[in-house]
């Protein structure tokens, strides 16, 4: 905290002196500029999060004033319950599938939009629109599309699939959720890929074209290797946001049927607010945090390593 209470030295009056001082150490910015920000950060983020992490190791029920410290009790109890393992498995499956499919589709769309086609600006806008929409609304929109005898069931019938009940069937429900998330965020991936593609100087691809490289070869040998930054951003963003997935599940399946689409975040909500197991709920939050931290750091490490060699 001592850095916070530092006060800028009172400026001596002579301009010459001030200028000499500035040369010597540069003008600092007084720390009081950051006091409101750090107060908010401390009060709303840091202290409650640290308290939460502590509560994860206690038997806190949200009411008792003095929770008992029980070590890893909550975690052991959670991992002994099949529903936790199901939620963990679902979360990982969703995260991996969403990351691969969303970024794959996003890349294809970006390549298509980053061309000479006349409709590129209109298409880019339309494809991005779902990103800004409220995810709970997107969830209900798709719940209707997936309803038995609804639009998608009718389209599936044309392809010979009878009585499709995507979200009602425990086997298919999770794929329904994945489709919803991919639909909403593919435009986001597209825009990040696009920003990377537009940073590639046109001379490089033109030179390759003159040397007779077709568009596929140009993409594989020139564009793709230069897309490392958007690749890292896209992977990190989609993995982290799917590990925290909550809204779309609440709107489409509420974690059902049974536990078929329960994610760590929905389980956290039900544990804490339906069953009043506050400390187990927070323990689930800590598990989500450990997962995201491991993913983020391993991605940073992997990509830094490759760049260095």
């Amino acid at each position: 905290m001592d850095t916070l209470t530092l006060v800028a030295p009172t400026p001596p009056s002579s301009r010459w002196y001030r200028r000499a001082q500035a040369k010597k150490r540069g003008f600092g910015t007084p720390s009081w500029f950051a006091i409101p920000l750090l107060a908010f950060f401390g009060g709303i983020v840091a202290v409650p999060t640290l308290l939460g992490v502590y509560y994860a190791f206690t038997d806190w029920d949200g009411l008792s004033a003095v929770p008992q410290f029980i070590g890893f009790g909550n975690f052991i109890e959670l991992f002994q319950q099949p529903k936790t393992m199901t939620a963990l498995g679902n979360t990982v499956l969703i995260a991996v599938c969403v990351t691969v499919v969303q970024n794959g589709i996003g890349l294809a769309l970006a390549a298509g939009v980053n061309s000479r086609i006349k409709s590129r600006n209109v298409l880019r806008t339309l494809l991005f629109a779902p990103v800004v929409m409220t995810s709970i609304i997107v969830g209900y929109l798709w719940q209707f599309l997936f309803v038995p005898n609804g639009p998608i069931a009718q389209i599936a019938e044309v392809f010979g699939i009878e009585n499709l009940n995507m979200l009602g069937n425990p086997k298919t429900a999770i794929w329904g959720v994945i489709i919803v998330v991919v639909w909403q965020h593919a435009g986001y991936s597209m825009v990040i890929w696009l920003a990377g593609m537009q940073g590639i100087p046109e001379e490089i691809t033109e030179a390759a074209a003159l040397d007779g490289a077709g568009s596929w070869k140009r993409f594989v040998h020139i564009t793709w290797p230069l897309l490392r930054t958007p690749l890292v951003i896209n992977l990190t963003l989609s993995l982290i946001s799917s590990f925290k997935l909550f809204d779309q599940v609440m709107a489409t399946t509420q974690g059902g049927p049974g536990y078929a689409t329960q994610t760590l975040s929905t389980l956290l909500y039900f544990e804490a607010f339906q069953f009043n197991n506050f400390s187990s709920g927070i323990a689930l939050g800590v598990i989500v945090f450990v997962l995201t931290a491991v993913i983020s750091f391993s991605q940073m490490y992997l990509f830094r390593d490759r760049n260095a060699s």
Partner: protein
Amino acid sequence: MNRYTWKTLVLEIVMILAAAVFVFPLWMLISVGFRPAAEVAKNPMGIPTSLNFDNFVGAWVEGELGSAFLTSALITVVSVLVLVVIGASGSYYFARSRGVAGMRWYAIVAAGMMVPFQIGLLPLYRIMANVGLTGNPIAVILISIGIHLPLTVILYTGFIKKIPPEYEEAARVDGATPFQAFWRIVVPMLMPITGTVIILNGIGVWNEFFLPLLYLSGTDSVTIPVRVYGFVGEYGADWGKIFAGLLMASLPVLVLFFLFQRYMIKSFGSGLKG
């Protein structure tokens, strides 16, 4: 390479077809609300035969969307305003402090990006209950500010670091106080990044569901996402009315998006490079 060849035409057609598949759910969002429930049940993909606003009136009145809009707007505007003020000034210290203290604090705040806010949300719930703020939009505003602080700081600090310090130093040499240098010299240069901060945080706060669900559900002042969550439950299978509500609830964001699409897409694309 720059000519429009037959290959470009094929690509154009393929892309338009792909976009049509992609946009189909949006077309459903617009069309279903204009059709009576019985007709939707019979033929879910039908085209509206007339502009029927019954569903919209019903959803607006029974769904109490009007007051939900006001609550959402209040929470979003106040949160974003505070984020801009404390984010810009705090980041100015992080980027320009003498020595390493500023960047240390920056690293701590930026690391908040990775922490799921649910961990802190439960203890906060207890704290807010103690001070009587559960059910009060103020609690949602305070916590929204906390949630979006790390991104705001990352955006502002990255931007300020790229501004050469000579401008402020010249002003300081001429006797400006640190506040004057910040207000008159730095703030005017922050306009582009402030636009990005407003867009990303505004959309983030407006769309947030978990937080207002915990703090506001069951009260008179709920936000749009919580209200939508509530009335879908109440309407059962009356998809016409539900979709009228969904369309009205998504209109403000969609209209703003289509008006400022170029700028918004740029914000989302560039905002995360820092």
